[in-house]
């Protein structure tokens, strides 16, 4: 009996201490596109600031935003904007949402290297993913049926690509993959494949074609791998990568966010294949108190 009591006390004590630690630990959750980048940022930050604890998990932008609304995380990574519905829910829950932009992404459309198609217009990409074009020969390629690889509906990339490129529904035949990495792997193996992923996932990837994209027919084609084209907006499918927080940041949360936006944080952003924040988005960050 005494032993049992001892064990109980010990486990209670353990629970207490983990609980105390949890309060100091920053919980970051959400976008699969952002996960490698934010993980790297957290690692660099923790190296510079011993004693700081940051846990970064994925699950998709939708999952992260849902966690922020339910107050289960400190930062929600989102590769899309929060939907009006989510905003309404957040204010119902007493969550005062602030948006921070930490990087730019050139959303990349990828194909198998043996596929002769090396460039497409936004319109053609939309038609392919809406299921209106089903054979590569219709865009000047081989006579091969197109296999689409996209994300699942909890993905911010899924929503962004649909709203910005498709402006309609995805073909029901598109494979719904678990994450950017899975799309990259699938397209590498599939000569008929086409997929879309954050540029951070294709920067050093071999065995892939990253398509050049033009905003309109007869327009100029640009590659997301060219940072100048992404910054200038010549590459048509760019998006800000966001972090949503509750209220004005203070303490460790503020320090970490400031680190992300600092020049050393932005160096990490570029190392991970994404692009630094353009001036136009800095106002969000100022508004968030950074």
């Amino acid at each position, binding site marked *: 009996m005494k032993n049992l009591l001892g064990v109980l006390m010990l486990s209670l004590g353990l629970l207490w201490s983990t609980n105390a630690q949890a309060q100091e630990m920053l919980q970051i959750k959400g976008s699969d596109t952002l996960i490698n980048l934010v993980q790297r940022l957290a690692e660099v930050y923790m190296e510079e600031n011993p004693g700081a604890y940051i846990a970064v998990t994925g*699950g998709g932008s939708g999952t992260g935003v849902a966690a922020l609304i339910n107050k289960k995380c400190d930062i929600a990574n989102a590769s899309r904007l929060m939907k009006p519905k989510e905003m309404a*829910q957040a204010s119902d829950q007493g969550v005062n949402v602030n948006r921070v932009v930490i990087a730019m992404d050139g959303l990349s459309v990828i194909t198998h290297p043996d596929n002769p198609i090396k460039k497409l217009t936004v319109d053609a990409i939309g038609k392919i993913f809406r299921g209106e074009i089903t054979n590569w020969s219709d865009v000047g390629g081989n006579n091969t049926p197109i296999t689409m690889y996209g994300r699942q509906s*909890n993905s911010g990339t899924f*929503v962004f690509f649909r709203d910005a490129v*498709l402006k309609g529904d995805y073909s*029901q035949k598109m494979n*719904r993959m678990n994450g950017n990495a899975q799309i990259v792997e699938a397209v590498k193996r599939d000569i008929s494949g086409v997929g879309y992923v954050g540029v951070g996932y294709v920067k050093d990837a071999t065995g892939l074609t990253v398509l050049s994209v033009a905003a309109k027919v007869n327009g100029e084609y640009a590659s997301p791998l060219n940072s100048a084209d992404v910054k200038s907006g010549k590459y048509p499918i760019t998006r800000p990568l966001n972090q949503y927080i509750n209220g004005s940041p203070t303490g460790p949360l503020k320090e970490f966010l400031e680190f992300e936006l600092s020049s050393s944080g932005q160096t990490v952003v570029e190392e991970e294949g994404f692009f630094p924040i353009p001036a136009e988005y800095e106002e969000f960050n100022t508004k968030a108190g950074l």
Partner: protein
Amino acid sequence: MQMVIKKSWFNNSIKEKLIHGFFFCNGIISVVVLLGIFALLVFTSIPAFSEVNLKDFLFGTTWNPTSYVKEQYGIIPMLVSTFMVTIGALAIAIPLGIGTAAYLSDVASPRVREIAKPTVEILAGIPSVVIGFLGIVLVGPFLSKVFGIHNGLNALNGSILLAVMALPTIVSISEDALSNVPKSYGQASLALGATKWQTVIKVKIPSALSGIIAACMLGMGRAIGETMTVLMATGCAPAMPERFLGPVRTLTSSIAIELGEVAYNTTHYYALFALGLVLFIITFFVNMTSDIILHKFEKVNR
């Protein structure tokens, strides 16, 4: 002296009652939990049908609750997918499983059985996410090579993986059933001049049939409810499945994909619970059928 006896009698009686109560609670708790889950599913599903027509839900062929244009809640493609994957898995796992069980019970030497049976049972302990991973890196590329298709994420891939997962259940329970057939049956058959093969096929398997069917039904239950593996290995395209070598999206993977991001208390949220209810009803009927079959065979055997 008498006091001592009385005290121990008293103790025993209380103990007896406590133990009785404890087992009664254990028995009743699973019934309460089952009813509770059913009630929860029903009550959380009902609001979905204020906006979704029940007919469209049951017979609709498009599932797209996060549509850009118009939300649609038809479960037919997912039902078809679930059945395709499950039937495929059983078609692979049942012959293989019964064959293995027959080998283990009648052919293998005791030493081989002592090693092989636990090994098969350990297979059941492999996490489904690991099996799903094997589906992506191993089975998928293999299928695409063998069938000359562009990718291996399809119903057949899911079936193969689910067969692997259902196999331990089927082998283990079938083997138990075969071992429980009285020795005299086999001996009588052999004495009448039947070969070992004839004895297994015509005497032992029929006498162990109720156990074998129960094993297959349990395997089927596992295959229908499995989520992570099919989520990873079947492509998850929501379109109506056309063939075994095309992508499918089962009821379970739809719930898993969408429940993480759905806004609470919306039609979509309730509709996902309705999917859960459908799944619950299917597994309920599978289990009930297996129970009825079991009882029938028990009567015949008697």
